């Protein structure tokens, strides 16, 4: 593998990682946009999404690689079931933990979110045990360049890479359609910009918040499923790191800014893949969180966001 091929390979790796970070980061940024809460439990919803999707596969009797029509029916079905489950979970978290604190200081729900994060992690620990859990290789992995195009290259692009991108892009298009075109999507943006005025438009703000947690939870579930299929492994503690990186992505793009979160996720994906390769995997967290600190110090509104500017 020459240097050029290494770069291309790591960039492809970065893209798939970044897609997962982007899906998680969107949930962070949407919830922040609407109730100004950094929901530190969000990464753990992603982790649970992985295990929940595993349970759905098990319930549907899938233990081996899916082929043919099964792939076209069962996989989308598990996507939907997982997303619905994590969406419901996220809504339940809000109802139980955050909603009672809606009128309190901003610090109270923030600390509660950290507590919820610990609870979810320990729930997973209790459910799955401390050892890494094998995730069945449900999606066929084909070395596209060699097997489909007959190109002998040191670079690997597999059908799994295609799945990650092919699942993430439609989700983002659907999300974009929802927030820019639909009635409730517009209500969500209005509530994020000015809650009191949104209420004066007849918008039920609590219902909008519920919807935000629902959509954010669904995206985190999709990310967990994608992660499981791609890496074939799940750990009870994985939500913590993924959550912090996705949070960094959301801050980088401008917290509250949805395109910013998607781009920030991709950027953190590339950065962590390159850092793993060119520096050392041990340094990747330090680099990612240095970016977080730099952004918070020098450009707290993020690279794209200027959210505070409309609170005139």
């Amino acid at each position, binding site marked *: 593998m020459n240097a050029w091929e290494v770069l291309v390979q790591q960039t492809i790796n970065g893209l798939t990682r970044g897609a997962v970070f982007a899906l998680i980061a969107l949930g962070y940024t949407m919830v922040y946009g609407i109730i100004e809460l950094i929901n530190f439990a969000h990464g753990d919803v992603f982790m649970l999404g992985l295990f929940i999707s595993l349970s759905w596969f098990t319930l549907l009797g899938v233990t081996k690689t899916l082929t043919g029509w099964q792939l076209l029916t069962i996989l989308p079905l598990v996507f939907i079931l997982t997303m619905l489950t994590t969406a419901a979970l996220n809504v339940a978290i809000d109802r139980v933990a955050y909603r009672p604190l809606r009128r309190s200081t901003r610090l109270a729900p923030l600390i509660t979110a950290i507590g919820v994060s610990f609870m979810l992690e320990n729930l997973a620990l209790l459910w799955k045990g401390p050892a890494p859990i094998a995730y069945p290789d449900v999606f066929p992995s084909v070395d596209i360049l060699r097997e489909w195009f007959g190109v002998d290259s040191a670079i690997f692009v597999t059908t799994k890479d295609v799945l990650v991108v092919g699942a993430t892009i439609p989700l983002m298009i659907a999300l974009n359609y929802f927030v820019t075109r639909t009635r409730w999507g517009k209500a969500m*943006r209005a509530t994020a*910009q000015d809650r*009191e005025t949104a*209420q*004066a*438009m007849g*918008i039920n703000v609590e219902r909008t918040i519920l919807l935000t947690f629902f959509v954010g939870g669904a995206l985190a579930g999709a990310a967990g499923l994608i992660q499981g299929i791609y890496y074939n492994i799940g750990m009870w503690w994985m939500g913590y790191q993924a959550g912090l990186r996705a949070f960094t992505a959301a801050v980088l793009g401008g917290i509250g800014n949805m395109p910013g979160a998607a781009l920030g996720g991709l950027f953190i994906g590339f950065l962590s893949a390159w850092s793993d390769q060119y520096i050392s995997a041990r340094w990747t967290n330090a680099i990612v969180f240095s970016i977080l600190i730099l952004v918070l110090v020098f450009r707290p509104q993020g690279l794209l966001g200027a959210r505070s500017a*409309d609170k*005139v």
Partner: protein
Amino acid sequence: MLELADVHTYYGNIRALRGVSLTVAQGEIVTLIGSNGAGKTTTLKTILGTTRPRRGTVTFSGQRLDTLATDRIVRLGIAQSPEGRRIFARMTVLENLELGAFARKDRAAIGSDLERVFALFPRLAQRSTQQGGTLSGGEQQMLAIGRALMARPTLLLLDEPSMGLAPILVETIFRIIQDINRQGTTILLVEQNARMALGVAHRGYVMQTGRIVLQAAAAELLRSDLVRKTYLGEK
């Protein structure tokens, strides 16, 4: 149609309203005048339920409002053009107007109301795809009023529609307020510009430090000593 009876509203321990009673009858323009901090905006907020009265009642068409959530109150047919316009800066003019109609059930009629708003404010039609935040102050005021009209309210609450506008634009806005009223909408108008407000209103209330100190027909208030000295700057 609307009745406030002995309403007391607090911000923490600060008494903002100290027993406000007022009525608005169907078809009227009623104005609430007074200086800064008199409690005019608080009165509107109490009607809309964004702040709650600690004592007293607010009724609208026989229904108690002071226990209802704001979005439910809006659904009963009350819309507001708030102080400081409060338009959604990062949404287009059209989206702002659509949000005004959010609570309506008769979605089919929204299109014709949009045309009505564009007829009243042609500038909004020209700028319909622009972000709300890019509009001038006067245009934002038009958008705030237009957005409230999109709810096709039976009662329209206007909070300082003349604030920060050039005199010629103030005249236009007040003419439009009269037009809206003639088309059947009841209006409660809060203003610091007492002369303009009393010029279009049927009746008026004068507020000072959380109380109604005077109420009369608009023409009568214009002649009263208190109003002439305190709010019209006459000697």
